[in-house]
């Protein structure tokens, strides 16, 4: 091999990754740093913003939006747990007993993604509306008191989040369950483990990577979401996403929005990396 050739080989991976990585550095990493800078500026839209390193904005937004921060993590956590509990038996059934219908079932699982995320959420607004096709009918048949309402409650927001991100939970679960070597399960049965023991001591532990990956893929978007809270939650159940969106796009108070977004990013990224460290990024990345 000539020297020139060897040089080419060494440079090749950098040349290949350069355009993509430059794009990500310019429009993903650099903005994260710049957002922190923006958060410490003061001023307003008309007079312009100046860099004053005003870090006082951080305690200010934490104080002002503490409920939204707490609610986001609470709703995100609840939605993740619901998605896990609801989709585990489904993923299990498809992986172990899906047989020839496996492909069809998986297709049905991702079918909601063919309808836009915003439209899916709006559909729940139609379903849960006071005089809508479901609640309206139930009230007319006196199965529900006429004053009952489902929209504008925290339950509606959590259900919406759990619904929207359920496939993100179900698919990694399916992959991890599908990967389990059937002979291991067989062996447990041959060694006289009861059905319950086979599940609790063999299948469940082996599916944990899927649980962790699904948990991450569900929790992060659910916590950062504001569409569900906006459409289903009314005014009293908004999350940190709603607040960030308002500060940026309605009040044009960029520093406050940037500060909140920075806090959310730090909380989530620290969490994600701690999570990835503990479990190995590899195992999570395989499912992403």
């Amino acid at each position, binding site marked *: 091999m000539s020297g020139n050739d060897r040089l080419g080989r*060494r440079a090749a*991976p*950098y040349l*290949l*990754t350069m*355009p*993509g*990585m430059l*794009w*990500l550095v310019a*429009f*993903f990493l650099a*903005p994260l740093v*710049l*957002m922190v*800078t923006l958060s410490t500026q003061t001023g307003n839209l008309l007079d312009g913003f100046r860099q004053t390193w005003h870090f006082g904005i951080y305690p200010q937004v934490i104080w002002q939006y503490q409920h939204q921060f707490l609610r986001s993590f609470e709703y995100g956590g609840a939605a993740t747990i619901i998605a896990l509990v609801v989709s585990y*038996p*489904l993923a299990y*059934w498809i992986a172990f007993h899906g047989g020839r219908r496996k492909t069809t079932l998986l297709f*049905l*699982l991702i079918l*909601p*993604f063919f*309808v*836009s*995320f915003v*439209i899916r959420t*709006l*559909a729940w*607004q*139609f*379903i849960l*509306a006071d*005089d809508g*096709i479901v609640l*309206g009918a139930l009230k007319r048949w006196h199965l529900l008191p006429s004053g009952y309402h489902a929209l504008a409650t925290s339950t509606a927001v959590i259900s919406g989040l759990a*619904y929207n991100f359920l496939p993100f939970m179900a698919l990694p679960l399916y992959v991890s369950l599908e990967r389990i070597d*059937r002979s291991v399960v*067989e062996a447990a*049965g*041959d060694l006289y483990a009861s*059905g319950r023991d*086979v599940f609790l001591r063999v299948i469940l532990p082996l599916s944990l990577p899927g649980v962790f990956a699904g948990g991450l893929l569900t929790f*992060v978007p659910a916590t*950062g*979401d504001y569409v569900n809270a906006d*459409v289903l939650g009314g005014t009293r159940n908004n999350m940190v*996403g709603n607040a960030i*969106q308002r500060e940026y*796009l309605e009040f044009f108070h*960029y520093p406050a929005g*940037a500060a909140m*977004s920075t806090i*959310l990013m730090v909380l*989530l*990224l620290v969490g994600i990396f701690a999570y990835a460290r503990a479990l190995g*990024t590899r195992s*999570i*990345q395989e499912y*992403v």
Partner: protein
Amino acid sequence: MSIVATRDASLVEGWGGPKQTRKQRRLRRFVLPIYSALVILYLLTPIFIIVLYGFNQTSPKKVAFRWGGFTLRWYRKAFVLSGLTAAFKNSLMIAAISTIIATILGTLVALALFRYRYRGKGATEGILFANIAAPEIVLGASLLSLFVLFGVPRGIRTIIIAHVMFNIAYVAVTVRARMAGFDRAIEEAAQDLGANPLQTFIRVTLPLIFPGILAGALLAFALSIDDFIITNFVSGAVETFPIWVYGAV
């Protein structure tokens, strides 16, 4: 019972074979399938509802949740609704352009990750992982911060920049996963037979990894056309389909 027989039983019936109790059999035959059907029905409910309400007879003035009877009027009116057609065209154009750019850049990254060991590989993987794991609201807010600080006017261009940004990693991960079974010996054979590196790439490598690239591109297109949160931050006055729908209700 011999091992072979057990295996065969497992192929037909799943685990447990003949040792399972009646309770387990009931769980497998009835409870789990019915439960799964209900969950899938639940996942599909909003789609039925949306289709149904497309035929709802209501006043055009405001959004109504009440069922007012059957009409086809909305399908006739769909293309004269102000803004809808323009928003849809915007979405298609943005998705097409950003998919092409993201697919090229993402595929190159995937090739580097698959074929080479190099310093900085871990960093590349880390950035891709962080990009996928980061919440959309943070991606949108930070990108808007960049545009605000540099006084970049928001519009179609900034939306395309954003969509390429969040799609590169998805394409790279998808293409790389599909390369897993790729046999390097085929490339070496091509080179032994006198093909230069470019010819090898275009006539041997590319056709073999094309299904992966296509999968990555389809994913990127779908993510682009559906994106609301990031787009909402960087769109300025331009409306894409999801933004139009959001504003219409």
